[in-house]
Structure formats: C-alpha cells, structure tokens
C-alpha cells in the first residue's frame, strides 16, 4: 500500500483534520494529506518533538518505544504511531472523532505504509 493511500484512509475517518508521515529525527514532512488551515510543518515538528520526549520517559524505565501516543485536548487530539525507517505516522483530529476508529486506522496505516 502506498503512503498516499494510507494517509487517505486515515483522513477518510470523520473528524480527522489531516494526516502526515514525518521523519522522526528532524521533524520534516515526508508526505501529507491535510485540510486547509492545518500547518503541516508545525504538526510535524511538534509531533516529532513530543514523541522524542515521551520516548525518553519509556527509555528511562527500560521499556520499548510506545506504538501509539495520543495527546488529548479540549478541542481535539493528536495521534502518533512510529513506523519503521525512522518515520512517524501522525493524525490531527477534532473532538468529534471516533477515537477507537482513528486508533485502529493509524495503527494499521503505520504497519502497512512503509
């Protein structure tokens, strides 16, 4: 499955504002499918930074890197799923999104997109 197809599958979920593939090391956008008004570079940089910080926490505990990270806010959420080759699959969604569906969608995309 191609990158663009994986991103499209995630963005088809109602409430999703955009999805990206991001390079973990430098926070650069590799591919994206975003609604107008969503700043892909900002999402990529913030997602990579947050993932790195949380990876630090699990490393201290001797745990492997998380397979899914969710930042929940009052008006939406950010989901990250690390994939192979130093890439991260990222989705931004509004509060109305079905979290369980998005969780499964992004995990599937992370597992098949590379």
């Amino acid at each position, binding site marked *: 499955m191609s990158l663009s197809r994986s991103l499209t599958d995630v963005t088809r979920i109602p409430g999703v504002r955009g999805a990206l593939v991001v390079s973990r090391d430098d926070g650069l956008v590799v591919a994206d499918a975003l609604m107008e008004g*969503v*700043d892909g570079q*900002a*999402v990529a940089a*913030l*997602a990579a*930074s*947050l993932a790195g*910080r*949380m990876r*630090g*926490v*699990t*490393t*201290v*505990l*001797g*745990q*492997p*890197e*998380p*397979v*899914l*990270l*969710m*930042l*929940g*806010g*009052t*008006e*939406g*959420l*950010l989901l990250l799923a690390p994939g192979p080759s130093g890439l991260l699959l990222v989705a*931004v969604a509004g*509060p109305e999104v079905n979290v369980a569906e998005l969780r499964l969608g992004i995990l599937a995309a992370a597992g098949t997109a590379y």
Partner: protein
Amino acid sequence: MIPETIQALTAQLARDPASLVFLPLAEALRRRGQLDSALTVATSGAGRYPEMAGAWDLIARVQSDRGEGDLAFDAWTTVLRLDPDHIGAHKGLGFLCYRGGDHARSLRYLQRAAELAPDDAAVQTALARVREIAGARRVPGYAEPATDPLRAMDTEPDQALLVDQQGRLLAGDLRGQDGGSAGEAVAAALTGVTREAERAARLLGLGTWRRISLEGGPAHFELRTPTIDSVLLLTRGRHVPAGRLAMLADRAAAAARRWLEELR
C-alpha cells in the same frame, strides 16, 4: 446587560485586543447565558494576562455554569495560587465541594470566605447550611493529616508518580527494569512535558491539553496535569484495558489535585 452594550464592548475589544474590557464583556455574556462565547473571551483574556486572578475567576464561574466542575476547580485553584485571599474562589470552591458531597472541605472554604467577608449574608447562609448537613463542627485548629494521594488510592505501589514543573518528585514512585526505584530519573525525563504539550495543543488548535496516553510494550502509560504546575504519570501492565487505565488516571489526578491544594 442589554445586547447593545455587549456589542459596544465587543467592538472595543476588537479595536484594542489588549484591553481589560474582556472582563466586563465575558461577565455580560455569562449573565446572558452565552457561555461558549463568555468562555472564549475569558480564556483569551487570561492568555494575555495569566497572572490576573480575576480573569481565572471569570473562567471558573463560566465553567461552573457549564457544569464543568473539574475545570472550574482547576481555575479557582489557580486563582488562589495568584491571590490566596480571593473571596470568589473560596466561595466557588466551597460550592463545588458541597455539590460534590465533600462537606468537610466545603466548610473549610466557606469558613475562609466568611473570615474574608464577614458581612456577606450569602456566605453566612451557605456556611450555616453546610455546617448543618456536615452534622459536626471541627475542633478549632484541627486539620486532617494529608495522606500521599497516590498511595492512598492505589493498592499496587510504585505505579504512579507526581512531579512538579521543575521535575522534582512530589509523591509516588516507579520501578525500572532492574526493579530499583526510577522515580527521580522519570521525574527528570518528564521536565518540560507540560510546556511541550501545551505548546503543541495551542499551535495545533487542540485547545487546552488534558491527557497523554502511551500504548505499547509490556506497560501502558497515562499522563495528566492535576494542576497547572504538576504532572502525574500512571502506568499499568498492558493487560489493563486502555479505558480503565484512563479512568484510573483521572481518579489519581483528582486525588492529587486535592492533595496539592491542601498542602498549599
């Protein structure tokens, strides 16, 4: 307040976004029942003036009107951090605790409000009512000892950690892979997480951040921010369903919030 006045205040705020006119405007909107708009205006004002107790008090009252007791509790706790003698915050917290069935704490807040405003008839009435419901008067000077919130609620020790914004341990502990204490190291790793999450949530239009969930490996993690200057990390084995872990984290955060507020 008549709609024309709201229009005039709105226009004034649009001309000068740094103006303090957001206070009467948000209050006017709250009184008219336009709670979403009132919250937007008050939150924006508090963003510009984060050290202004009155702005947070306004947010708390709007959130209380919206039935968002936990958020109102947070906002009033912030008010007391900025102004420990804020009467409105003591009254508001007294009301929230009463509504939540915590009459002892409600009594404490209302007693303080009564000390600060001895002529406030509404406070005296509320105080008398809560005293009657509580059914007992405290011996003057007596205070219940605060217990470690994470141990008090947790039958499995060393699976939760509470740290301040500087990464200093406040309560709890976690075990590393070798079985030794990893609390201090995790606390250090958590330093700056709040600011990072706040920044990400703000720039991505996610509102105020409430939680971070991590899944994977043999354990799952939940992060909460019980107060604006603390972070709670809770972990369980992956056999604990994600929804249950989120609920446990919410309960731990509420216990930690009360504990921190009592300590202060």
